[in-house]
Every structure is written in structure tokens, then in C-alpha cells.
């Protein structure tokens, strides 16, 4: 696709309309059957051909299916676009939303968003070093690469305690029923509000979704502490300089010593291979799924020790291809164990790498995506991508038993 002035996922609708004027002539000239995107950064708009005075997705206006994979939840993108406009775009049939975790995709389907598809993240196809792991670099035994997941608690922002109630109640229930996602607790168990109904008018749908995500904000902030920030703070305290925090803002948010973010991907990936234990801690936006780091650390041959997440067993054999911990005590215990058992660490890293390179590259995801779109009639059966005959891991989506299945019907007619 031609270059745009900016691919900022939060740029305005006006800018996206201007960007449509760049994409449209390009797409008109090319024989393109599918447009693929991340985080809707390449979502552009054009004046509608069929409805004068209105705008349409560039791809929709040209009859080309558009798939955007979300690496972050929908609420984290298009923050400069009004919620109503954003919601209207999400309700577009021509846009297929590739969502990376079950909880988020179920949530969107419940809100009436069409064409939602669940597929996990993966790692970009690259020239991976598959040689046995070298001896670790001298220095820190454990490293985490990432920024603090929440600045909310340091912001001293005034908040009305009542706004915290739904998030805290959900957190309490989640403590006792860890596989239950926010939307089920919020709507089904506690009925804090009604989910949108298909008979609701647009304004009601927008309001209901806005209220829901506003309540979820506190819960996400809680998850940010639960899944990431707490462990960074804990290990800095317990391991001192044996733990390296590679990322920005840890000093500002928590007064923790850290080294700056590594911008050069090659250097970052080498670091993943050369630190004895590469920690993976998820952000607050994740409820059930895996993040990019799960696939990245393992693909580049690092030994990954990750906080447990419900979907992890679907993609890795825990204890053989990576290892997981569930609390501070187990984290420390496993760090000590693996530091004292380097051969076991190497074997796990090698097995993890084999798994990712055979099943979790983006080429695997695109192959499966095309199959699904063909099955749904969105793409013609003749569309072919590089075929990789590998088994696909199973994920569980309530009510659907197929693998990597769409959680809602995918419409063939944009």
C-alpha cells in the first residue's frame, strides 16, 4: 500500500479522509482481493460513491474486504475519534475485526459488532537464529522488556469512589473465578447494565458501550497492576540488579531503576536470547489471551517465564516450551530453579522456538485467515497464499467448536 503521511492509530477522521484520497486511486489500479492491517492504522475514508454526501471506508466503497488485527483493545485505538464515530465504523460490515483474545472478541460480538474473528497474535516472519543458546551474558539473570502498564495510580487524578465500584466488584469475582471475563461478570452475573439490544437505536448502542468501557477502565487499571507492574516492583526489590527492567518510565511511576527501551529490534531480540530468564508480563488490556512477547521471546530462542493467562495452554506446553508462574512465591521459586538448571532452560527455549516457528508466525495466521474468509464466501476460493501445512492450535470459543473460528458470522457482502 502507498505510504501515508502518518499511520498513527489515533489520528483524526479528517486525516483519514485525506488519506483515503491516496489509497483510492492505488486500490482502483491494483487487483487486490484483501487489505490487511494492524490496529486500524490504515483505515481510511472516502466520499461514498453510492450515498452522496456521506463517507465510507475506502475499501468498502471499492468492494474489497478489509481485515484489521488488533494488537491493543479497540478502546486504545482511534482515541482522537469521537466514540460515536468510532462505534459507527466498528459496526461496518465491510471491516473484519481480527481480535487477538477470546474475552475481547466475545465482548464485541455481544455489543453487536459484526464480523469479529478471533485469532491470536504471532511473530513476524524473520531470519531466526535456531542455533543452540549461547552461554548467557554476564549481568542480570532476569530481564523484563516493557513499560509500566498503568500511569493511572501515579497520576493523582481525582476520581469519585462510586466510579470504582463495578471494576472492584469484578476484580473481587475474578479473584474467585479467574476464567470469567469482565463482560460476563458485568452483564451476566451482576447486571450492572444491560448489554445493547439489536432493537436499540444507534445513540443507545453508543451510550451503552461508552458506559460499559468507562466502568471497565478501573478494572483494566487493576489488571495492569495485577499482571505486570506488581511483579516488576517485586523483583526489583527482591533481586536488585540481578533483575533488569528494560523500558521507559519505571523511575517516574514507581521510582524503580531501569535501563531505556531498546529501539533496535535486532539488539532487543539478541537480548532475549542472551538473558538467562526473559520475563513476560502482560498489560492491563489483556484478560484471557497472549501478547506479542509470548511469540517474540520464544521465536528468537529466549527462555520465557510468563505470568499465567487462561489461553496460554492452547499455544504452548507449559513446563516444556515455556514456563509460567501464578504468584510472587512461585516466580521467585522458578527463577531460582531455572538459574540452577541451565540445561533445562535451554531445552525449554529450544522447544518453545520450534513450536513458534512451526505454528505461530504471521504467515500461519494469514493462511488460516484466508481459509476462513474463503469458507465465509468473503474471498473467492481461488485466492491462494503460501500454504503451510501445519496443525493449528485449538482455542475455545463458547458455542463454537471449530479452530480459529469467527465468533460471529462473517458476512460475504460488504
Amino acid at each position, binding site marked *: 500500500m502507498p505510504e501515508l503521511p502518518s499511520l498513527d492509530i489515533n489520528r483524526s477522521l479528517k486525516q483519514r479522509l485525506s488519506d483515503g484520497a491516496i489509497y483510492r486511486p492505488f486500490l482502483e489500479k491494483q487487483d487486490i482481493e484483501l487489505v490487511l492491517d494492524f490496529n486500524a492504522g490504515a483505515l481510511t475514508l472516502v466520499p461514498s460513491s453510492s450515498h452522496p454526501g456521506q463517507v465510507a471506508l475506502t475499501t468498502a466503497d471499492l468492494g474489497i474486504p478489509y481485515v484489521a488485527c488488533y494488537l491493543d483493545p479497540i478502546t486504545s485505538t482511534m482515541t482522537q475519534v469521537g466514540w460515536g464515530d468510532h462505534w459507527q465504523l466498528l459496526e461496518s460490515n465491510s471491516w473484519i475485526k481480527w481480535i487477538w483474545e477470546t474475552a475481547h472478541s466475545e465482548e464485541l460480538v455481544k455489543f453487536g459488532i459484526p464480523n469479529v474473528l478471533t485469532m491470536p497474535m504471532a511473530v513476524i516472519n524473520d531470519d531466526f537464529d535456531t542455533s543452540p543458546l549461547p552461554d548467557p551474558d554476564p549481568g542480570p539473570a532476569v530481564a523484563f522488556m516493557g513499560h509500566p502498564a498503568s500511569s493511572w495510580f501515579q497520576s493523582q487524578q481525582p476520581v469519585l469512589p462510586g466510579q470504582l465500584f463495578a471494576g472492584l466488584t469484578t476484580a*473481587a469475582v475474578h*479473584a474467585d473465578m479467574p476464567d470469567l471475563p469482565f463482560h460476563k461478570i458485568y452483564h451476566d452475573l451482576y447486571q450492572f447494565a444491560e448489554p445493547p439490544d439489536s432493537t436499540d437505536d444507534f445513540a443507545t448502542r453508543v451510550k451503552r458501550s461508552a458506559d460499559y468501557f468507562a466502568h471497565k477502565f478501573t478494572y483494566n487499571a487493576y489488571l495492569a497492576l495485577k499482571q505486570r507492574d506488581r511483579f516488576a516492583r517485586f523483583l526489583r526489590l527482591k533481586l536488585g540488579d540481578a533483575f533488569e527492567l528494560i523500558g521507559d518510565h519505571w523511575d517516574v511511576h514507581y521510582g524503580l531503576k531501569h535501563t531505556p527501551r531498546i529501539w533496535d529490534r535486532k539488539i532487543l531480540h539478541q537480548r532475549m536470547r542472551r538473558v538467562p530468564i526473559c520475563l513476560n508480563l502482560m498489560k492491563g488490556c489483556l484478560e484471557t489471551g497472549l501478547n506479542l512477547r509470548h511469540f517474540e521471546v520464544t521465536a528468537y530462542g529466549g527462555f520465557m517465564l510468563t505470568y499465567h493467562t487462561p489461553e496460554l495452554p492452547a499455544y504452548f506446553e507449559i513446563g516444556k516450551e515455556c514456563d509460567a508462574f501464578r504468584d510472587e512465591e512461585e516466580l521467585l521459586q522458578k527463577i531460582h530453579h531455572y538459574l540452577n538448571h541451565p540445561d533445562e532452560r535451554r531445552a525449554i527455549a529450544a522447544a518453545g522456538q520450534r513450536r513458534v516457528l512451526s505454528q505461530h508466525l504471521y504467515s500461519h495466521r494469514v493462511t488460516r485467515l484466508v481459509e476462513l474468509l474463503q469458507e465465509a464466501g468473503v474471498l473467492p476460493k481461488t485466492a491462494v497464499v503460501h500454504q503451510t501445512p501445519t496443525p493449528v492450535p485449538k482455542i475455545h470459543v463458547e458455542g463454537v467448536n471449530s479452530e480459529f473460528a469467527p465468533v460471529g458470522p462473517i458476512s460475504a457482502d460488504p
Partner: protein
Amino acid sequence: MRIGAFRHGWWKRACETLSLDVTDLPVAEHPSGNAYAADLNARIANGSKTAAVLADLDVDLLLDNGGTGLGFLRVAEGADNLKLVHEEAGRPLLSHFIDPLATALQGLPWPAVWQCLQSQSWGKAIWDRAQAVELQRLGVPGVTHLPMAAQDRSYDTRPLHPSKCMPLVSFVGSQNTSYFARNVTVPTNTLLAGTLARATRCDLPDMSFYDIYHDVYGLGEPVDPGDLVETKINKTLAYFNAKLFYNASLCIHNRDRFVIFLKRILGDTFHLVGRGWDTAYGLRTSPRLATADEYLNHFREAAINLNLVNGNAETGLNMRHFEITAAGGFMLCYRQPELKEHFEIGKECVEFDNEADLLEKIQYYLSHPQERVAIALAGQKRTLSQHLYSHRLQALLQAVQPKPLPVEYSTTNRWDDLKSLVPDPEVVLDCGANTGQTASSLRKIYPGARIYSFEPVTSVFGELRTRCEALGVHPVKKAVGDRDGMATIHLTASPEANSLLGFQEGSPCSQWCRVVGCEDVEVCTLDRWCVENGIDLRSVDILKLDVQGAELQALYGARKLLKTVKAVYLEVSFVPIYKDCPLFDEIETFMKECGYRRQTIYPSDQPHNWADALYVKA
């Protein structure tokens, strides 16, 4: 024994059950009717009355609930000229806290509360183990754990009739947090500690707020015995302020959520009696139970009595656990760590873990009435035989029987004493440094000394190293012992109790010394370590040992050093706290053999169990 009870029916009846002579004493009043809100003036006014009564009354022990018997006497003008009534009268006061101490003494400013808490003759019996340990670790003397109980009275012990079961499911209790209804904003940074604790307890449900705040995340400095009073007050105040949001969130976790849930699912089949539910959540409640008999009968009439503890409970049981079962009702309660210590779960009461489990058990027990009746009967037997206030009083009286202290303790400040004995040491060895608490105190009194802090456990050493950097102290990641090499150290529930020695069954410190893991660590003898690190043995002037029962081993490995070291400050045990740990007499004998005399000995928060001794070269 003669008891003075501060107008409290439970204690009075318990005394009568035990045939103890009991006299009613007045409590300070507050216009709101809430005795917990009694302020300083009310307690001064009441203090004079109490003092007058006590002058003519022959009682051995004063008993109250929630510190309502805490009174003051003004001995001269000025805020600092207040004395505690019970101390002035020379009578021990024992308070049973059925609410957290910070709640029960809410009418008093925190500095005054803190000063009172230091009273050695005021026994604080705390209903929740986590809160009892919290106070002990904050340095409050005289703290014991004493669960709540049911009143001594006559109960209907006939088996329940299974067909008599209306309402089907009932909960009796108030909605107790107004935190979420307030129309005043709070800054988000005040939510950090509470949210972190909630997140951690999600994965480690038995961990207390104190452990999370201090040991796991280092959100604040623990109180050090050597701290100035003002520092202690500021540290504890910051701690309890940080805990405020946590307690509010526990109200939701432990109680409110289930009430909201059941009202939604069961509607009026769920019978709710208590204040606040209508205003907080718009839930319909039934009229309050006006008399004690109505209240107890209600528990017998309901098929299932739900029990949900309040937001102030971390581990303990509330009064309802004992009241429902004493009355003969069938109790279904949310799981709580101390429940299994009091009831056989599944046989004397039933617990649930979450919303799904709650619904499932309600359905099950409604359709198995005979099982319900049998459990209720067994629960009643248990409570009437073990969990009445008279049983608690018996335990208290045993605990307060005068027990001579193992030694005569010093009341002077340990760091002042050390400074005057060794004014300008060249080298100080701080062994068993933990996170550097003692190193901080040593650095304050010895700004010019070379201090080496030894700590072998990785999880603790990280924090020590950070603190040492700030203090200009040298951290050494080793244990000290009687040989060089490797050893396994036992990691304990409290990291301050990590020890080379194993767990001692029946240890009075078992809640801290419980082994939760182990780590292989390097051990060195101090004699060899000094030589290898170029430290002239004669330059070492002070040796501090706090190595959790392994002090004698460390001393064996320091025989050369002990020829010249001027002062040795070390922890000693009077009872077996760790497996095979040497007791005080053995240490004393060894120190004498090495040419030391005991200068003095300082009490710990468990003066019958352990202390810190200071020896100087004779």
C-alpha cells in the same frame, strides 16, 4: 479472681458462667451513642469517674470491648500530662477488639492511640489473626489473638424441624462501607497500595495486607524498635491510611457483592435484614429483629443462614459465625482462613468459594433438609462447647496469669547504650541484616564506621543492596556459620525469620517461622571472611548477630574475632523457636568463656520468647 467489666453484657455473663466476681464499670459516652467515637475529653471525664470507683474497688483485672475502658487522668495542665487510668490504678486492662483497633479508637487522635498502645499493662486481644500479627510487627506490646464467640445464655438445643424453613435463604448484617457512596473525589495515588494488595491476594489469598505492604512490595518502611516515637507514629499512620482503600474493597469482596448477587438471582426468596442496603444499592430489606430472642429464633427458622464477614476481616471470623451456630441455625459462609480452626467444614457448617459455588450449595442444601439439620446440630454442639465468651475468658485468664519474665529487661535505648560503650568503632559486622533495618540504625549512630551487612537470601538481598547503597554500607551476600561452604537456608512465611535451622513444631512464633521454601546459600566463618577480605581482625569493634537461632554457630566461626571485638549485640531465645536452636543459657555460657559480660538485655515484642542481648569485653 475479681473482674471489673466496662459495662459489657458479654463479659459479665461470661464471668457469671465461670462464677467470677464481676463489677460493672462506666464507659465514656459519645453523643452519637457510638462508644468507639468517644474522644479525649469524654475519656478524661470518664477516667476520673473510673479512678474514683477503682480506688474503693478490689478488682484484679479490668475487661472491656474495643478499648471502651481506656480512660485518662489529667495530672496537670497541658496535653502531655495525661496518664492512663488503669496504669495509675495499678490494674491490668484487657480489651477484646471485635473491630480493628483503628476503628474502635476512632475518637482519639492517632498520636494518642499510639502512646496508649505502648502500655505494657494494657492487653490487646485481637479477633483477627492477621490484624494481631500486624500490631505485633508494628511494635505494639501485649497483643494476643482471641477470636470472637457467642454470648453465654440459654439456647434452644432441640433439633431443627426440616419442614420449618422460612425464609429459605437469609442474611442478617449491615452494609458497612460508605466509601463508594461519598461524593468527594480521591486522588488515584491513594488507591495504589490497596489495589496492589487486592491483586496479590487474588493469587495468594492467605497473604495479609501487612506482608504485602512491607515484605512483598516495600511500600513503606517497617517500624523499627530503634525509631523515634514520632517516626513510629508517622510510619503507622501512613500504613493505616494506605490500608483504608483496601478495607473498603474488602467490604465488596467479602460481603456486598454476594448480597447484591443473591438479591438479583433469588429476589425476595433471599431475606435481607440490616441497615444501609436500601440506600447504598436500592435493595429491599426486611424489618430489623427487635429482640435478642427474635434474632436467635430467626437463625433457627431460616433454612440457610448466609454469613458474610465485613471488610475489616482479613483472616478471622465474625460474631455471626458463633451466633448462628449457637442458636442452632444452618450456616453457609464465604471461605475465611481461620474458619477451619473453629469448625469442621462440611460437618458443622458449610463454606462457599464464589458466586457459582454459592448458588450450587444453596440448591443442594435446600433439597437435602436432613443433612442441613445434622450440620446445624453439630455446629451448635461445637459452639456451645468451645466458642462461648466464657471459653474465651478462660483462655484470657490463663494467658494473663502473671508469668515471670525470663530476665530483667533494660528500659534504656539500645543504640544510645551501644554508642556510649563503643563511641567510635572502626568496623562493624552486621550479620543477618535482612533488608538493612539494623544497618540504618547503626549508620545513624556511627556515620564514620565501616559497616558490613551479611544477608544470604536472594529475595531479601536485593532490597538490602539498594538500602546499603544509600547508607554507604557494604552488603555481603553470605550467611555466617561455623564452616565455609554451601548450606540450605529455610525461607519462612516472614522473610525476617529465614533461618539455617529448621521449623520447630509448637514454636510460639510459628506464624512467622513456617517454612515456605528453601535456597542454597554460601556460608562463611567470620574469621576467615575477614582475613580473605583484608580486614584486620583487631579493627572489628562491634559484632551484631541476628541469624534466627544460628547465633552460636556464627560465634563458633568467629573465635579469633572474639578475642578483640568490644561489643557483641545478638538475638537470644528463651524457648525453642527453631529446631535445635541454642537457648539463652548456652549463649551466655559461651560468651562468658570468651571473656564477655552481659551489659544488658532488651525486650522484644515477645519478651517471654526472645530478646536482644548486649555483651561487652570484660
